[in-house]
């Protein structure tokens, strides 16, 4: 099973892939309306906001956790 290069989500169904295109390496949540992938800063901010919204974390902690996660992902290797 493929995993999204930008957030690590497993992609099993067509609807998991950006634009429903199974040849894409990133998921529906990491794609913009035009199908292109979010930039590093866009993705980072959206993950921080999501972590705060769903887990109630302090912003600085959320930022560290998100950076730690993004550092492992192929899409962002060059950003660290």
């Amino acid at each position, binding site marked *: *099973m493929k995993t999204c290069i930008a957030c*690590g*989500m*497993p992609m*099993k*169904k067509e*609807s998991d892939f950006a634009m429903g295109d199974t040849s894409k390496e990133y998921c529906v949540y990491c794609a913009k309306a035009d199908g292109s992938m979010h930039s590093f800063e866009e993705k980072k901010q959206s*993950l921080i906001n*999501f*972590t*705060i*919204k*769903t*887990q*109630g*974390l302090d912003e600085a*902690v*959320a930022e*560290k*956790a998100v950076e*730690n*996660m993004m550092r*492992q992902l192929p899409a962002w290797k060059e950003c660290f």
Partner: protein
Amino acid sequence: MKTKRQIQKEATRKIILNAAYQMYANEGFSATTNQIAKAANVSHGTIFVHFPTVDNLIICLLERFGSEINEHLHLLSEKDESLETFLAAHINVLICYEDFYKRLISEINSLPQEAKYVFINIQSVVSFHLNQVIEREKEKMAIKEIPMHIIFNSWLGLIHYYLTNNYLFTAGSVLTDHKDELILNYIKLIRK
């Protein structure tokens, strides 16, 4: 194509991670690398060929554990699943790793900072799926006006309380024995 040496190296790494997983599940994170080496049937030095420090071993193990939970939960999650189905899927995944997970939540505060971040990211996978289910329930006006993080943290708090105090509730697996009761009553708390 991988060389024989690379295949052997990966196999040994996997054996060490499996032994560490079992040792930490049984003994807690104070288990020594000597104990892990013995369980893996490798020399003590071999562990440090694959993992330069104990912290690195713990972090790699947690990352692998997180990936497994992620994949497992994703496979169990269906597009239009109900709240009941999702909560049952979450508990079922945790039952597969119950002893290790119990140690992890009991000892997380004494683990290295990076391990704590990995732990947050493991929970993010769960909160991602729960958030999707809750958003759908909110559209149907079926959920009380409670912030998402309180909904998530209350669920986690409930199951973590039962896990860390397993002995109060059963001699066996607390998640197996109390799964239905926890799901049913948690939903009563948050649903209108």
